[in-house]
């Protein structure tokens, strides 16, 4: 532990936005945090990172949930020579009671740096920095208190969900229940990496996609409806009378131009057959417009960041799935298992499911997981004529005749 000055970190305590440095200093009595502060100051001086790749560390029975981390300046900052993080699986929707927060704090005070990320980008509550020997005890205490770890490594990652029905009128599905249910159903996949690479699931209650499911999950569940938007004409008129520019802010911005609005009478009607349920009009007039009643979800696949083949946004594989709580989301889980099986069997090391589909083609994916091709899966059909035929689709007799021709042909030449 050094008593190094930290002019650059001090600089970062200024300004109106809450300072992470102040947060760290609140824990400075912990040697690890003091060293972390020193290490960071050194990084700012050197303009580079001072951490090395993590080795395999973890807790008994799990292959994931812990990120091992070692410093290359361990000789200077011994208390962060080992500085692993633990990923604690958050409650669906990130709702907490003050007591549940305190429990986590107490455990982390006992076993770690006292620093956290609330939350990680995948959704876990991150306990930031401890030593190898504290991992198991910390996990034991967490487990006793009713907490479990989230995912890391080549496994199912911690699913996450938007606030949904707990706090939002736009929720087309019970995001929290679904998230909790899936997380528990697939505990084994979550804790024991046995796949080619990571697999992420995110659940948004509507097309606003408040957990960025389409951008950040291999498997994206986005709530939607099949019937029609509920319009409260009186409420529309109130917006109009309130001077809200319905025509320019709502009608003109409808992507499928399916709203008709009479500026005089303020009559507002939606051609639901042509509505693509983008949420815009509902967002802009929440008191007048509501999502439909026959709700479910659109399932999309393949979302991921840049590495390796550049970022993919998830694409539609099931336009509408009625998610049944009653049967425990059987249809959804069954689909997931089929996808995992195919991916697991066919993917190369570190090949995301979206990249595998790109390599093998949607036609193979659909056939193998037993889904039907639907026009909703594409922006537009293929432009190239490079499409394939399944053996059963062609006239088999032909090939033989053809070979004969070929032979004949050969003679002639």
């Amino acid at each position, binding site marked *: 532990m050094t008593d190094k000055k930290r002019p650059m970190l001090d600089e970062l305590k200024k300004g109106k936005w809450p300072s992470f440095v102040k947060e760290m200093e609140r824990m400075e009595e912990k040697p690890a945090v003091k060293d972390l502060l020193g290490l960071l100051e050194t990084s700012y001086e050197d303009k580079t990172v001072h951490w090395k790749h993590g080795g395999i560390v973890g807790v008994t029975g799990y292959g994931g949930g812990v990120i091992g981390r070692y410093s290359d300046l361990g000789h200077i900052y011994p208390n962060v020579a080992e500085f692993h993080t633990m990923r604690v699986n958050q409650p669906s929707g990130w709702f907490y009671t003050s007591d549940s927060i305190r429990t986590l704090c107490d455990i982390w005070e006992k076993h770690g740096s006292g620093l956290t990320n609330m939350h990680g980008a995948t959704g876990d509550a991150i306990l930031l920095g401890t030593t190898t020997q504290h991992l198991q005890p910390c996990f034991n205490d967490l487990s006793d208190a009713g907490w479990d770890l989230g995912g890391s490594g080549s496994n199912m990652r911690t699913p996450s969900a938007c606030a949904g029905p707990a706090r939002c009128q736009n929720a087309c599905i019970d995001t929290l229940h679904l998230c909790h249910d899936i997380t528990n159903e697939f505990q084994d996949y979550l804790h024991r990496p046995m796949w080619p690479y990571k697999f992420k699931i995110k659940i948004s209650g509507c097309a606003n996609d408040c957990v960025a499911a*389409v951008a950040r999950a291999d498997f994206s569940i986005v709530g939607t409806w099949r019937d029609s938007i509920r319009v409260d004409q009186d409420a529309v008129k109130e917006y109009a009378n309130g001077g809200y520019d319905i025509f320019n802010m709502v009608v003109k911005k409808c992507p499928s131009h399916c709203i008709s609005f009479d500026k005089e009478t303020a009559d507002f009607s939606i051609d639901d057959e042509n*509505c693509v349920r983008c949420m815009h009009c509902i967002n802009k007039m929440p008191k007048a417009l509501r999502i439909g009643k026959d709700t479910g979800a659109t399932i999309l696949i393949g979302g991921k960041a840049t590495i390796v083949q550049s970022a993919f946004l998830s694409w539609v594989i099931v336009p509408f799935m009625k998610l049944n709580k009653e049967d425990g989301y059987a249809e959804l889980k069954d689909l997931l298992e089929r996808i995992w099986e195919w991916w697991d069997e066919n993917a190369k090391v570190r090949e995301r499911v979206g990249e595998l589909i790109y390599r093998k083609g949607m036609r193979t994916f659909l056939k193998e997981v037993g889904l039907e091709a639907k026009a909703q899966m594409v922006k537009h059909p293929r*432009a190239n004529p490079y499409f394939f035929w399944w053996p059963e689709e062609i006239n088999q007799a032909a090939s033989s005749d*053809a070979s004969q*021709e070929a*032979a004949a042909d*050969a003679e002639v030449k």
Partner: protein
Amino acid sequence: MTEVRKAKTDIGPPHYEKMLPQIIKDNYGKWKYHEYIKSGVLKHVPESGDALFSVRVGSPRLLSIATLRDFADIADKYCDGHLRFTSRHNVEFLLSDESKVEPLIDEIEAMGWPVGGTGNSLNNIIHTQGWIHCHSAATDASATVKAVMDELFDYFKNDQLPAKLKISMACCLNMCGAVHCSDIAFVGIHRTIPRINDEGVAKGCEIPNVIASCPTGAIRPNPKAKSVSINEEKCMYCGNCYTVCPSLTIMDAQNDGVAIFVGGKVANTRSGPAFSRLAIPWVPNNPPRWPELVDAIKHLTEIWVKNAKPGERYGEWIERIGWEKFFQIAELPFTDKHIDDFIFSVPTFRTTSNFKY
């Protein structure tokens, strides 16, 4: 060569100026506007106030010298000996005397040559060699085009379509004629993998070129046979290996046929150029009149005529309603074949929950 005399080379084509009528020479580059006099007749007015009339005559493109001589005579009689051909292979008679327009039309139509194809009409079908001259043809060009034009003839004669209708045809995936950006395109395709004549490959083909020719990397060397082998899984029957190596026979009379694409466009107007996209993966080769093909194209044309707004090209109509709606209206099955799985596939996937049911 039988003859020893060597001709003068590299002289280039005749100078276009020699080919232009006086009225064009006088007003070259000084045109002010054009008018549609009637279907098949264009009037171009230059600053000078003259008037040039172009009478467009539909052509099968395959023309005998007998017919060409007839055209020359017509040109002499009405056009001071001037005519031209269009980029879609029609004939255009160029008149400076309005009074001669109707007589010319009467005479040429009496000879069986239709006048039309201007404005918002069906233009002539760009097409290629087919079984008349190319070794590579998976279907015939002249017959399919004739059959389709016979059926859609009135759309060529009248110019009352929502917009121009450009139909193009190619007899194999080489797509001579660039059908890949047409309102409606039909292309001869194969559906079975090449049969390999090892001996022929060994004797006649550059194996590295053969391997390189495959878009999907389906071809591997077969050293034992000094030939190649083809991975069934990866071959999508494009025939490019056949182009570079005759001993990879891809013709398959029972399975070859025609694929139909829609919604392409070349002009930069409004939305800009766009590719045609797969609508119907296959209709059979059914000579001499390809009824399945003709019905399909007629149907595709009629739904556009019925549903498009004035001024909407085929693809602009589809973009407005969405492809999923198009397949509904067209009552066409959407299959896994319609989903791209080549190099640029991912950007064609629908990465949003915004769609119609």
